[in-house]
């Protein structure tokens, strides 16, 4: 059971291969409608031709499909739904169609190439306007005051944390940093929509999820400074957080390595029959390098349900992830969520993005399209947040962060033995020897060895 969240600049992807629930058709009483690839028949968000978030398979199709093929193994049953969906064709005549894996394929005497781009791009689901007003007629999952305030506070914390750590890197206090500026809504709203049992496989721009789950500012600082309180024991770069108790897999730098692993986690959750899903994140680097209409259209190419959502709209992201999670867990199928957003900051502290994009574009998205501003307006309008609370929060977070940095800086680094630990479960003889040899070298050249690493 997996959700894959992918951003174009952020997109979400859900992966979930289990099918057991299809054997109780009486649970499912919704109708679904087929979406053909070249269709320009998308109407409004609540229109007929969309697969609404809580749709499941039509009863009869399910039952008949399963009866026909009940002896096929479990793992191929997912494919059956595709077949049944396409079975109600206009061309029932044998000569006009051919059975092919995936359904009946009808013939045509017209040579027609499918256009490389649809007439209209897939529209983007949004609930809040730029001014923070709810768009009339929008369907979304209601967020109560407590959650909304927590969400907003987390977004602010994330933003300030990014600013301060970025500055710390610029001052030379940490070696590297990567901000999530502009993507706070995706981080926090997605985290809020999930439970703590859901496993996260991040790319590297999702620390907000850890923040939501209770990772403290001190723990963030420890990892960035690589001191001995870091759970990774200083063995990874800054921002490569990982915490098994928060169900947040350790970040690995190369792009998209976590996507196949998400399938494995989903497999594991399926074996354990857990009421949980896995969410894998990736950005444009992992998905959007090509000329398609983003990655949302690729969902259908893979047989994966997909949706495009406004990634800077916290409410829309929240609703979408909630819905997707339900779908994924109950239908045991993957879902792809493309959250459109904008990376306001540079790629990392090693990047100067003004070299490849205009400065006013960055400014525009930073101010006019800021997800924080938009959400704040909505929360404010509901009377759930005041300006005083805002400044108080910002001051407090800032102080906590500066303190955390100071503490982290002073904390000892991991000791030398950690260099050789965790390569294997036990220290093998060759590493033992290498450690000995290193220690001897250090003893002989004490002055060349850093003083803040305990031996």
């Amino acid at each position, binding site marked *: 059971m997996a959700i894959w969240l992918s951003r174009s600049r952020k997109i979400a992807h859900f992966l979930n291969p289990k099918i057991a629930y299809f054997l109780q058709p009486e649970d499912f009483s919704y109708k679904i409608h087929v979406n053909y690839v070249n269709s320009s028949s998308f109407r409004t968000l609540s229109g007929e031709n969309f697969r609404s978030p809580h749709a499941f398979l039509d009863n009869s199709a399910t039952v008949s499909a399963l009866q026909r093929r009940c002896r096929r*193994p*479990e*793992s191929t049953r997912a494919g059956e739904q595709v077949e049944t969906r396409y079975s109600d064709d206009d061309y029932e005549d044998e000569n006009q169609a051919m059975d092919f894996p995936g359904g009946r394929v009808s013939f045509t005497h017209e040579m027609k190439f499918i256009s490389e781009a649809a007439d209209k791009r897939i529209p983007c689901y949004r609930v809040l306007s730029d001014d923070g007003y709810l768009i009339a007629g929008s369907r979304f999952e209601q967020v109560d005051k407590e959650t909304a305030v927590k969400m907003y506070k987390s977004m602010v914390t994330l933003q300030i944390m990014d600013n301060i750590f970025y500055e710390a890197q610029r001052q030379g206090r940490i070696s590297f940093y990567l901000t999530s500026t502009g993507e706070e809504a995706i981080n926090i709203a997605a985290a809020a929509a999930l439970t703590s049992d859901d*496993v996260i*496989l991040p790319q590297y721009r999702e620390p907000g999820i850890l923040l939501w789950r209770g990772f403290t500012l001190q723990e963030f600082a420890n990892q960035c400074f690589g001191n001995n309180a*870091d*759970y*990774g*024991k*200083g*063995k*990874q770069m800054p921002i*490569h957080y*990982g*915490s*098994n108790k928060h169900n947040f*897999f*350790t970040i*690995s730098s*190369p792009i998209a*390595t*976590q*996507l*196949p*692993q*998400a*399938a*494995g*986690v*989903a*497999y*594991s*959750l*399926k*074996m354990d029959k857990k009421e949980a899903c*896995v969410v894998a994140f990736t950005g444009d680097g992992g998905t959007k390098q090509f000329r398609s209409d983003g990655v949302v259209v690729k969902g259908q190419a893979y047989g994966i349900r997909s949706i495009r959502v406004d990634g800077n709209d916290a409410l829309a992201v929240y609703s979408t992830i909630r819905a997707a999670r339900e779908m994924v867990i109950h239908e045991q199928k993957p879902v792809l969520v493309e959250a459109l957003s904008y990376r306001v900051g540079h790629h990392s502290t090693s990047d100067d993005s003004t070299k490849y994009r205009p400065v006013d574009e960055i400014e525009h998205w930073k101010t006019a399209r800021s997800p924080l501003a938009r959400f704040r307006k909505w929360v404010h309008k509901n009377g759930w947040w005041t300006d005083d609370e805002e400044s108080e929060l910002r001051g407090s977070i800032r102080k906590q962060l500066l303190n955390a940095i100071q503490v982290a800086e002073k904390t000892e680094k991991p000791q030398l033995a950690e260099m050789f*630990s*965790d*390569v*294997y*479960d036990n220290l*093998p*003889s*060759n590493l033992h020897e290498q450690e000995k040899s290193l220690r001897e070298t250090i003893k002989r050249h004490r002055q060349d060895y850093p003083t803040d690493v305990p031996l």
Partner: protein
Amino acid sequence: MLQAIGVASPSVSFSDHYNKFSVSSIRSFPVIRSDSRLISVSGSVHGSFKPKKVIAKATATQTESSASAASKPGHELLLFEALREGLEEEMDRDPRVCVFGEDVGHYGGSYKVTKGLAEKYGDLRVLDTPIAENSFTGMGVGAAMTGLRPVIEGMNMGFLLLAFNQISDNCGMLHYTSGGQFTIPTVIRGPGGVGRQLGAEHSQRLESYFQSIPGIQLVACSTVYNAKGLMKAAIRSENPVVLFEHVLLYNLKERIPDEEYVLSLEEAEMVRPGEHITILTYSRMRYHVMQAAKTLVNKGYDPEVIDIRSLKPFDLYTIGNSVKKTHRVLIVEECMRTGGIGASLTAAINENFHDYLDAPIVCLSSQDVPTPYAGTLEEWTVVQPAQIVAAVEQLCLIHISSYTHSLAFPTMTSSSNWRRKLFDLSMKYSVQTRLLVLNFYVKKRKNLGCLRVSEAENLGSSWKVGHYEKFLDRVDVGRDRRISDESWLEVECY
């Protein structure tokens, strides 16, 4: 008694059984003293010292006659069945073990290693994957990080190159970079090595490429017995293990015990103890080495054959003990010359046991070429027994210039017109060194047609020309190999 060699504790010493030469026989072993190069002298030169005990069995494992098969303990099966048995036992024992791979489920595995498992455990636990090695290897990593113990099968090891990133960066590193929070107890297995005309891309030796990855262990199975034991050990290990099987070994048949056994992932296997030379090998080359060993034994050599099994880390304990005993090492591998397992092993032995080596380590490997498709060419890309025999014989020629202990230059009268150099070897070599390598220098002398052998105690015993020529087969007489009646050698015995 040699059947015991396959057992799980290869540290059992067999040297006591094979103390072939008594002290007295050592002392009458001819020592030829001379000049530049040393040559091997085997026991076969001496009619009376045929080392019968050593040659008793050239091969280690025995195939029993079918008549007595029924009464023997254990059961007979093929290597792929043994792998399956091991896998099945582990799947019964631990419900977290699962299998991913192409065609492992319904088809039962392309080499039948997983036959019947999908029917028994369901096709979720024995999962058929699409042809997407990077994806399903990554899937295995993710599943392992969440507590399962996947066994990932590559239909051919060569395909796993597509999963290199997942194996190297994630399998190998995530335990480390997460600070020990996540473990990756995966087993990645599959057939590799040069088969019968499978083509270059399907004849790869991936152990070369993987050996540098930190955090993983590499093992290679070679017999039915160790295949099952290593499979079980790999599954039980908390570290990611890559188990290399060989395409041509799946149909080996052997009798294995009924009782459960698990071998150690880090131990080498003593296949045939010996005294003269250590031959290190693994996987299919083990069989080529054993075939060569038969020939060598007939020629009077006594090779010690070790199947290293553990490719990462090397079992330097077993290997070291062997090197200390024999002082000569030959590595026979299927990897390519550059950057293979043999190359690393050569470096490791040189570093650790340099003082014990009497000769440079020789490594026989495949050439640095993609495996050709033509059968004849393919055969010659793999090390053959004849090459192994030649290499052993060659290795037993040593330069003794560095071992010179004392030089004596007695000169004869100018009329005799010869000169000899004496090298005192007895102080340098222990009685256990069977292959005494000697230099000698042949100078023509007019009137002597026999080999004068003078013993330390008895002077004057001599050999006939016939003995001399047979002896000289093994002797490098420098550039001039033509021996006439007028040449003679002075030989002294110790």
